[in-house]
């Protein structure tokens, strides 16, 4: 599927990052169009999280370009990238344990420019608590939340900044089947809001349900790209996953 440059939210070209002798991301390139959900798949250790870390500025690339809405952000400090409209969640969920749910979400929006008026910020926090299913928990310390609620809170914090691009690193991992259904619906509703999403995921049913397109990585390289159904039946992809994670979770 070809993308008009004007509608590309994220464009990655020739991205590379090595840790010592290990090339975790090797010549990676792809583009994500406005409102699209792009799946980023691959066996354990194939470089998915590293790719997200490079895009969000946790790590600086050795080479390559990363364009967020046309602007090269490669090597930019992560707080600047965040202010340009990128938000993310983490593979190992990270919430602010010493703060309550309301403050956690506030952290997501308080440092975006221009600053929101206080009343508007409070309204947005209420709406987000409601949206991720944490209504009524606003004064609850994040440390007391269950695993899924921590994930919800982390997502709400990411959404608080009204991001253009959202990077989700296995946000659906570890959920039970009914939680998974709720989670998938939630992500689908984000797409309906026009948020562009890069979804790193091992849960294949979720990938099928959500992703417009997918790329598959193996040992740092992109080995397949295309419409989700095509990619998942690709022989090279099936082979890369053999002995890795189960093809369906």
């Amino acid at each position: 599927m070809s993308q008009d440059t004007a509608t590309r939210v994220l464009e990655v070209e020739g991205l590379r990052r090595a840790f010592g002798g290990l090339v975790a991301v090797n010549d990676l390139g792809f583009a994500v169009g406005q409102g699209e959900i792009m799946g980023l798949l691959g066996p354990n250790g194939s470089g998915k999280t590293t790719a997200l870390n490079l895009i969000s500025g946790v790590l600086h690339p050795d080479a390559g370009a990363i364009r967020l809405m046309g602007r090269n952000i490669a090597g930019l400090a992560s707080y600047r990238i965040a202010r340009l409209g990128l938000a993310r969640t983490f593979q190992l969920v990270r919430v602010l344990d010493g703060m309550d749910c309301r403050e956690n979400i506030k952290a997501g929006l308080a440092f975006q420019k221009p600053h929101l008026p206080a009343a508007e910020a409070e309204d947005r926090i209420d709406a987000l608590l409601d949206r991720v299913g944490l209504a009524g928990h606003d004064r609850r310390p994040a440390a007391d939340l269950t695993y899924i609620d921590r994930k919800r809170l982390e997502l709400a914090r990411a959404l608080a900044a009204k991001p253009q691009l959202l990077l989700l690193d296995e946000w659906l991992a570890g959920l039970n089947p009914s939680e998974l259904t709720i989670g998938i619906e939630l992500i689908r509703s984000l797409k309906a809001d026009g948020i562009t999403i890069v979804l790193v995921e091992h849960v294949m049913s979720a990938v099928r349900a959500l992703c417009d397109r997918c790329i598959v990585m193996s040992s740092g390289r992109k080995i397949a790209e295309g419409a989700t159904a095509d990619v998942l039946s690709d022989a090279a992809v099936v082979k890369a996953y053999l002995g890795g994670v189960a093809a369906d979770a």
Partner: protein
Amino acid sequence: MSARVAGFGFLALAAIALLALVPRLGNAYYLALAISLLQYTVLATAWGMFSGPTRYVSLATTAFFGVGAYTVAVLGEILPWPLVLLIAAALGAVVAAIVGLSTLRLSGVYFVIFTFGLTELIRQLVVWFEVNKSRVLGRYVFVDITQADIYWQLLGLAAAVFLLGWLIARSRLGFALRVIGEDETVAKHCGINTTFAKVALFTISATVMTLVGAIMAPRWTYIEPSIAFNSMISFQVLIMALLGGAHRLWGPVLGAVPLTLLFELLSARFPNTFTIILGCIFLLIVYMLPRGVAGLFEKRSTTPGGKTTQRVAA
């Protein structure tokens, strides 16, 4: 809410007015003790302002205190007193900003070691300069400042520090520092310029410490680098702030007051074993009161350190 703030402000003013009367008691011993109490209260509170929310442990208190004291030793007789204080504060701020910019990217243990080394570095620089350039090691401080003046200045500084700390805690900067203390990676992804926030608070805290050093300097008539840069101050302030609880603005004072009294007693009674006792007290505090005295007053404590509750996806 604002009625509470007003009530509290009124109480604080009343307390300051009462405390301002201490020199009128005319008892030199009590005044000296009160000066010590205020000195450590301000130092520990300033320490907690930065280290409490960010959880960076700084041993640079002595470095800034010494810069302040030495500024007075050099300029005290030449320039008017307010100007001397201003220059001391500016010097402290500049040193802090440089140190902050170069070290606050480091994390945890490297920062501790660096700040400890910094004190020694500045002390050696001063010694080198005095020996090789000005050819004096040790200076007499003849300024027209009485003990009561020292006390009042410290009291004013203490009031300013609490007001400043209260304002910062309510500000976006204060919130940013709490987020940084919780999780620096998350802070960055929330759009917080973490380096700026940390350097800003480190600088504010260090400027206050420098001012304490400058205000205290006239207490000694003779100053040399080993007096001004006595690294024991760094450790005492650290212990006080931790005992009181550095995560609250009013925490460190709860540690500063009892420990100043205790140290006063111990250093008089056991001058030789004082440092050993200090070490033991430190260990006890860390084991028995991980959240400090302030932690005892809190209704419910969320998991200290927080991250332990994290569960890992299957």
